[in-house]
């Protein structure tokens, strides 16, 4: 039962985390000072705690399910680290834009739009197939 609860909490926090990342990405594409400020506050109070919760519940799932001895989880952890880094890049750019009033051209974020879903796809494939 604890495993199922942890899984629900992991998925819920993951959806909130990814949703928050998309919000930052969209806000940086069409920068408006008030919107960026609001997204920054939202990220600090909702998205980043959701990321940490997703990590905590993910680790808990690994411990409860005994998955840490499985090879696919090692690969998944590397991909999660990449996803975490992606969020770090987005928030760093957001904070730089808000603090220094430096607008980063939207085109430079196109790579992140491609990389994010690709990393997510690989993570989902690993979790579903558990090769």
């Amino acid at each position: 039962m604890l495993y199922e609860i942890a899984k629900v909490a992991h998925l819920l926090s993951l959806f909130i985390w990814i949703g928050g990342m998309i919000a930052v990405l969209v806000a940086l594409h069409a920068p408006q000072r008030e919107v960026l400020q609001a997204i920054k506050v939202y990220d600090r109070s909702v998205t980043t705690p959701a990321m940490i919760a997703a990590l905590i519940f993910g680790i808990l799932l690994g411990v409860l399910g005994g998955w840490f001895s499985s090879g696919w989880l090692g690969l998944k952890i590397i991909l999660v680290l990449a996803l975490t880094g992606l969020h770090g890049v987005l928030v760093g750019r957001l904070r730089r834009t808000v603090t220094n009033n430096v607008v980063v051209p939207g085109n430079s974020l196109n790579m992140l739009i491609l990389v994010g879903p690709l990393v997510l796809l690989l993570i989902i494939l690993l979790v579903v197939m558990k090769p």
Partner: protein
Amino acid sequence: MIGLQRATLFEGTTLILLFGVAMPLIYVAGVDVATPVMGPIHGLGFMVFMWFVVRAWAEELISFPGVARLVAGAFIPGASFLNERWLRRIAAENGAAHAV
């Protein structure tokens, strides 16, 4: 910079507890009680630390050599404490009053 400094300290502390307490308990005393707890805690601390490092780099608070220094330090017990002092110095030099 405060967040990155705290994450560096947390990561460094959990690494020392893992290497200095949990692992000797297994290999010297044959007691495997601390590793199942300290391993996941350190894993979480490392991931949050990496998030702070990437964020600080994207925010241009630290340069790429600074990132390399912090990441390398995360694998050497005790180095994180030196890195935290380095980050504190950078924050003081920049007069970084804004909390990271």
